[in-house]
């Protein structure tokens, strides 16, 4: 098969599926994996796709994203966290997402599922979660914070106290070296505290780069969480520290290429 022909097929496949795995493409085209990886390399130079571990995703500069543009690396890391978080959500769970980038991505991921009840104070997350149309999505009311499209304040808190959820996914704005959590506003702190109280299991979603940063309002020690989902790049001393505090640590290892 000629190179041009292969490229055409890969492009078509990517446009339909928006991601492609090396193993799968090599099966379809009946060429070696090395050939596929080289084609991916060329197509990346052309700006058509972005290579990932074991495959590639479609690079669409016009893609409409509700969340703020972040760099590729952080985006990939957040996506790993989302995959792990989604695997922890069981069918028919009632979950709560507090505001933040990762939760917005998680909401989008969960829109592929059905039968969930999703509570959130983040407007983007609410929109993302309801995209599939198969879940119940409840958006807590309140005053909109302009900078991050989430609602907060006394109305939100009062609304939230009516619900009891199985699991809440929390995002914070900073984690100090000795693993104390902090957030950037009073409203956010109140909301998280209230969410923690009305939930069976609290899970913190945090990019490993967040550790060492500090936001201005202290929230509490990491032990207020039942589990933490972060990236495998997290330094060993933090892994050990979190383990010793008896908080479940998911490092979102995602090394397996494609599916079985």
């Amino acid at each position, binding site marked *: 098969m000629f190179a041009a022909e292969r490229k055409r097929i890969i492009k078509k496949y990517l446009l339909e599926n928006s991601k492609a795995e090396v193993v799968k493409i090599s099966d379809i085209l009946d060429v070696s994996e090395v050939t596929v990886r080289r084609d991916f390399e060329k197509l990346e130079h052309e700006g058509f796709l972005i290579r990932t*571990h074991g495959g590639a995703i479609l690079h669409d500069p016009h893609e409409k994203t509700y969340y703020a543009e972040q760099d590729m690396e952080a985006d990939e890391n957040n996506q790993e966290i989302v995959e792990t978080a989604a695997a922890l959500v069981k069918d028919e769970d009632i979950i709560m997402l507090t505001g933040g980038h990762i939760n917005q991505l998680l909401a989008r991921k969960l829109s592929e599922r059905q039968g969930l009840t999703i509570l959130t104070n983040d407007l983007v997350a609410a929109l993302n979660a309801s995209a599939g149309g198969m879940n119940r999505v409840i958006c807590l009311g309140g005053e909109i914070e302009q900078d991050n499209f989430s609602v907060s304040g006394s109305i939100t808190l009062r609304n939230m106290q009516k619900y009891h959820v199985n699991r809440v996914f929390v995002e914070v704005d900073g984690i100090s070296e000795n693993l104390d959590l902090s957030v950037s506003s009073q409203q956010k702190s109140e909301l998280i505290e209230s969410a923690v109280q009305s939930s069976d299991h609290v899970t913190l979603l945090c990019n490993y780069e967040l550790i060492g940063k500090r936001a201005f309002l202290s929230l509490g020690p990491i032990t207020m969480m039942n589990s933490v989902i972060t990236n495998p790049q997290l330094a060993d001393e933090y892994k050990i520290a979190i383990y010793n505090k*008896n908080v479940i640590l998911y490092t979102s290892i995602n*090394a397996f290429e494609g599916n*079985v």
Partner: protein
Amino acid sequence: MSEQTVLELQDVNKSFNGEFNLSNVNLKLNTGDIHVIMGENGSGKSLLMKIVAGYFTVDSGNIIYKGNVINHLTIHKALSEGIYYQHQDLPVFENLSAAENIYFDYRTRRKKHLRIWNELENVAECKNLFSELGINLEPTKKLGLYGFAERQLLFAAKAFISDAKIIIFDEPTAGMSEVERITFFNILSLIKKKTEAIFYISHRLDEITKVGDKLSIMEQGRIISTSDIRNINEKEIIKLITGKHEIHQYPKISIKQNRECLLDVKGMRSGHILKDVSFKLYKQEILGITGLMGSGRSRLGNCLFGIRQPEGGIITLNGKICHFMHPFDAMLAGISLIPEERHINGIFNPLNMSGNMTLPNLKRFLNNSILDENILQQVVKDYVKKLGIIPADPENGIHYFSGGNQQKILLARWFMKRSLIYIMDEPTRGIDIASKIDVYNAMNNLVVKGASVILLSSDIDEIIGMCDRILILSDGKIKSELLQKDATKEKIYSLAIDD
């Protein structure tokens, strides 16, 4: 009973690679006692005995033997001082006869100058010895033809003639049948009359209450209690062993299973160790198999991976009956094994990290029979990042990596192979906590992506923490099956030690 102390350990410490394996061990061995030592696998029983027998020296603390401090023993010195250690996995000469194995060092230690090997005399003496001890074995038969239990009997006979003052038995009855055990206990009672004191490591409750005088229980390198066996019942012993140390939480992801059977093993037999093993493995589950030392966990893994051919039984993978004559067959069928002895069976010392990682996967990097080094390095880099391997330079020799990172390199090797079933044999033994967490999370990654995991482990906490279902292997059979929600440490332990 005279309470005379033959051997005393005072604040003995020993660490390997900065991790404490024994800390502040205090122990007294009294004249005339059979002192039983119990504890979970890896609690440091054998290590302690090896220190007494001169295999290792202590980091700090004292060993006092008959009033003398003997901290710097060698194996040879310990023997001549009268300390005989019967190793757990017996070091034997398989190509020599039973009599030769028993007597090869007997005369040299006794007669300093006249060392003549008299085969006939040996065999005759050995025959007498066997009839005195009631061992029904042939002295001239090659040792390689004897099974594990028979070898233990031979070595008990060797202990009998050794005239040692202290004899240490390290799980002598593991793998013995009832008849052999009766013979062994006869020998043991004869030995007890001849020698001053005995250390006895065992897991079997019934036998320790029968033969033991004192009982010490070890947990994570410490002696947590020493008591008189007559004052304690079996229930209390189990409680002491399973202990109440801090429970850590495991990062478990449970996948909703549709109970689709992936692997079906029926009636697998192998040697004296596996008698009749049957179980099923479902898609996307982590199946834990646990059992005592010598219960055949590793043998089971080896049989499934084609390292050993089972003597009977049927393995059905994805509805097809399989015969693995070689690990290569198993790999082709979609099975990977991460072996227990990482240094011997896992890593290739002469190769660097990328070589170790890609070895079974080189076919993936072929382009018209030529290896594409460029692409290979890119993929290796991806895996290094995804598994957090440190140091990250693929050119580094494998020996530059810590145990935990070596284990992660092995994980990367088999992840790259993209198998259906991952058999992990003691994947977290001897690695640091951070790597342990990564190994558990890697297991999650496998099941999320659709693969299945068989976790062979002696760490009961880990088994309960990570597995959807738990099988208990005992006496060569799958003794019972527990779901994660029903499993407790005490339950598993009492099922495993009970025959």
